[in-house]
């Protein structure tokens, strides 16, 4: 699969699962999108561990100290999968995977280079001793337990936005 195909396939599948999708190519772009989708009055949790997470700071005026009380979590994730439109959230590097679970709104930043073509590619990327938690996230939480009627937003987030970063913000290879 070519790179543009991969991206297109990922965005299509993610969209079909009711995730909002956005493409940005630099820090300014990122902040513009974040200002659009995260209301300024909503306390947002952002771990600030990666460059992209740090670059998001200006767009998040109201910060939550912890994800438990946050209205939104903005974070960079391990990767994504084109085949299913999923995000790959992993517990390595001291990351709290549940940060993307508890708040009502999850905003995930992922680099285009980290989009795997298939599920097989994704699982092959982990060592023999995998991290404690690997979670594939496809769209917001949902249920059809009542009369098979789809309800979005159960225990997990009610809203998922994915921001695909097309290139590194501070480097030109």
């Amino acid at each position, binding site marked *: 699969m070519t790179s543009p195909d991969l991206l297109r396939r990922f965005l299509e599948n993610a969209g079909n699962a009711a995730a909002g999708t956005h493409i940005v190519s630099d820090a300014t772009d990122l902040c513009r999108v974040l200002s659009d989708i995260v209301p300024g009055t909503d306390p947002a949790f952002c771990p600030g561990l990666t460059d992209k997470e740090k670059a998001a700071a200006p767009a998040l005026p109201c910060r939550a100290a912890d994800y438990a009380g946050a209205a939104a979590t903005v974070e960079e994730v391990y990767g994504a999968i084109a085949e299913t439109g999923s995000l790959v959230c992993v517990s390595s590097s001291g990351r709290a995977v*549940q940060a993307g679970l508890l708040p009502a709104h999850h905003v995930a930043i992922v680099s285009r280079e980290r989009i795997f073509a298939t599920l097989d590619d994704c699982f092959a990327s982990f060592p023999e001793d995998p991290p404690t*938690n690997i979670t594939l996230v496809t769209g917001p*939480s949902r249920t059809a337990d009542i*009369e098979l009627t789809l*309800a979005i937003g*159960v*225990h*997990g987030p009610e809203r998922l936005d994915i921001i695909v970063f097309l290139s590194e913000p501070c480097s030109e290879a």
Partner: protein
Amino acid sequence: MSDVQTSLAFRANATRALGDASLRSAMRQAADTFGTKRADAFASVADLEALRDKASALRLQVLDRLQEYEEMFASRATKAGATVHRARDASSAREIIAGILTDRGAKTVVKSKSMVSEEIHLNAHLEKAGMEVLETDLGEYIIQLVGETPSHIIVPAIHKNRQQVGRLFAEKLGVEYTEDPQVLTKIARRAIREKFLNADAGLSGANFAAAASGSLVLFTNEGNGRMVTTVPPLHIAILSLEKMIPSLADLPTFIRLLPRSATGQSITSYVSVITGTRKPGEATGAKELHIVLLDNGRTEILSGECREILKCIRCGACMNVCPVYRTVGGHSYGWTYPGPMGIVLTTLLTGMAKSHPLVDASTLCGACVEVCPVRIPLVDLFLKLRERRVREGFSKPMEKRGMRVFGKAAASPSLFSAGQFLSRTFWPLVRAFGGKDVAGRLPRPANVPFHRQVP
């Protein structure tokens, strides 16, 4: 409520269910919806048959070397920080789990869906030991509130309509009546969120266990599975032995098959892979993880002629297409597992003496065989169980005698002809004897059987 198995009353249960119009309508809608969704979901899958072959082969591979995979899993999971327990039967599993919770002084337990926990009646046991066990899967939450058991392995409250759920929430949660599923879902979210954050322990099942890495895999949509397994400090997972897959490299095959087979989704909202406890420097994972591997009859089934039922990945596709299940619902089967896979598993796990009427709960139409993602030869298994029922002496003496007569008569043309003559001549008597339900539905035999008309 039903800790008592009522499979022996299948016919009466079913007849009662047939008279319940709202149940029938709910079951019909569910079966039709899932059937269509499954077909739609697989329409875009390149080679479904190859996928099914692969899944079947992987499951057989595990069954052929189950002990080896079980030991591998236990060793890797332990290395990753989990404590692995083996429970020979239901009572030992209950004791192990109750013991862990009591030792930790755990009073409140949040639980995500686990059919195996229903099988061993875990909740009742823990509640007797003074613990509060809260089901967090919306469907399970609903039936827990109303005091019933699940009627479908994927959508446990399928037999409840929105009005019934609305009235239930109004009564038990003190909220204003609404029958809007969106609003009802939000009510449940608020009610349960508090419990997640303050629970002493989380109790879950697992869809699969990957042996090579010692990982548990959970497929969920609501997020409760994730909450239960990562928020409380203590996580206990219970799963039956045969849920092993060799490694995470084999997981994609099942990710492609299970959600589509179950609900027609191409993937569930969440697929969680949990390997051991929170390691130093990590911010995710339970501090303490106990994994209970349950046998409860699986090893015995493994060595028998019906072992292929252990390939089952609990997708529910078979019950969604079953004409009988669709008509009478899950409770009629009288135990934890309903529908086609339920007929086999119930009979094998609880024994013929407690479940033999279930082997008749099939027209042998084969719809289940067509959709099973791991190619379990369900119809063949029904036939084997029917033979076993006769061998073990659970068939009615009159039927046995009748079949003996049939066997002799149909092997002898003159006897066969004589039999036809007698039933033709004494048809009113045959009808009276056979009852209006059976002989009453047959037409009168022809005056001249075909073999007499042929030149």
